[in-house]
């Protein structure tokens, strides 16, 4: 007992006992990565929580709560540098809240069918695969050629997006576009946030740059700004409908994450942008491959247990 006894914490909602240092370490590890790459890290943390035996429903709901903290921490720095387009954030948010509500409904419906694990894992495999693949190809190309290709190339193009009605002016982003694409992007990210327990930064950031044509400078801050509200809303929905937010788990992850993020920022500042993106892409693809492997290879136990109702 002694030391071992003191390290284990019984999580009141997940109803499992987990080593506190493992959680702090996981939080710290993901915090380092999120500090390095400017992503929330939810897409890594949620599968890691599955691996250590946290029930998936609790992992997804609690991770949403943790992202509120890391995004809030991150957005404060961006507000100071005036890198947040509040108007664009608001429009994305309208879509985000609709998406989150739809996502929780889909999540609960599939939970009653016993397919929620499959859905969450499939979402992960598809999105991690697509985003990781695209990022990998793009950064390889950037490494080979000179660094002249950037978002600006995409921005000047007039696409179908400019033909849509309901145009609005977004001063901070320097854009005059229809409100429909941002709302749609918001909805998609909101659904993902609710189902996958992620902030959706790894989908939101590329969508803002390549689809909406926002300047890279304001993308991260604006994405973080609206992610705070979407994940806060998701947290409340999970807390009131599923009772699956585990406060003790969230706090342990937070503490580790916050400390890790500081080291991550320092490491990130020493690497080149293309190297960073290639590393991130490789990491995303590795998580994707592991999850895909588990779906394809015959599991050693074909039967699984679940509780009826409750959580």
């Amino acid at each position, binding site marked *: *007992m002694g030391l071992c006894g003191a390290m*284990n914490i019984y999580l009141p909602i997940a109803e499992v006992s987990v080593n506190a240092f493992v959680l702090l370490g996981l939080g710290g590890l993901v915090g380092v990565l999120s500090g390095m790459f400017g992503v929330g890290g939810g897409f890594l943390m949620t599968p890691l929580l599955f691996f250590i035996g946290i029930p998936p429903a609790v992992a997804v709901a609690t991770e949403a709560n943790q992202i509120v903290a890391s995004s*809030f921490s991150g957005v*404060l720095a961006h507000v100071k540098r005036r890198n947040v387009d509040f108007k664009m954030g608001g429009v994305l948010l309208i879509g985000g809240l609709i998406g989150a509500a739809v996502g929780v409904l889909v999540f609960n419906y599939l939970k009653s069918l016993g397919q929620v694990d499959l859905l969450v894992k499939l979402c992960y495999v598809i999105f991690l695969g697509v985003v990781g693949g695209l990022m990998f190809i793009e950064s390889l190309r950037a490494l080979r050629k000179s660094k002249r290709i950037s978002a600006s190339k995409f921005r000047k193009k007039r696409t179908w997006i400019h033909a849509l009605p309901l145009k609005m002016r977004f001063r901070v982003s320097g854009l005059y576009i229809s409100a429909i694409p941002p709302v749609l992007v918001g909805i998609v990210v909101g659904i993902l946030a609710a189902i996958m327990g992620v902030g959706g930064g790894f989908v939101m950031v590329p969508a803002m740059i390549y689809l909406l044509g926002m300047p890279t400078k304001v993308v991260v801050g604006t994405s973080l700004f609206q992610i705070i509200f979407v994940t806060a809303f998701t947290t409340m929905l999970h807390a009131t409908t599923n009772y699956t937010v585990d406060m003790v788990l*969230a706090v342990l992850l937070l503490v580790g994450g916050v400390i890790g993020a500081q080291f991550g920022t320092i490491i990130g500042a020493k690497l080149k942008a293309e190297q960073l993106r290639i590393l991130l892409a490789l990491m995303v693809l590795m998580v994707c491959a592991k999850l895909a492997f588990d779906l394809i290879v015959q599991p050693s*136990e*074909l039967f*699984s*247990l679940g509780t009826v109702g409750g959580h």
Partner: protein
Amino acid sequence: MRLFYAYVLTAMISLVGPAVSQDIVLGLSKQEIGITAFFDGSEILIFGAVKHQSEASSEGDLDVVVTIASPRSPVTVRRKEKRLGIWVNVDALEVDLAPSFYAVATTRPFDEVVSQASDLWHQISVRQLIRAVSVPVAVENPEEFTEALVRVRENDGLYQTLSGAVILQDQTLFSTSVSLPSNLVEGAYTARIFLMNDGDVVSEYQASIDVRKVGMERWLYNLAHERPVVYGLLSLAIAIFAGWAAAAAFRAVRG
């Protein structure tokens, strides 16, 4: 410690009531288990004595079986099959009531101590316990599912068969200890003690052990279920505060 137990035993033996040919006097090391934030499993010591009414009766050797069961709850057992190249849950059986924890401790191997008839009647083994309550639904062979339930929980250490774990001295004093895992659910756990002779149950005794979350665990769990809005808002407040504190500390460090 020994002396203490001996004292308790004599005290209890003298209190034992009406005449049956053999009776059990039972003691538990704990009647309550509190799940605290640092809960890391618990060990329960079960001890007692067999009270022989008539010394003359020509009985065979006695055996003792001790079971500990958690409260029962419904469980869904799902089976995976390969569809379109990936492993998907295809069908499920709902077992109406299954304990999440069950331990059987015996003086000798289970099959030698308990006859099939007694097992059927008293539901001593976990398989019988589950079989007795599960109603087969529209699944091809429900037995495969209940068997899987037992197998999965045995592998997780939640269902235990402890052969020879009960020590019986002079056909009178018995004791055993069962370690409960750290992922216990709450509720009233039941300890049953069977006195066996030639595969048949001679005497049976029951006691209950209360397992409850206490302190912060209790408070958080109640809050989450009874006032979910307050709980959710509190979680968010903590997250926002932590986020702010981190940013503030970071600024302070950077100067």
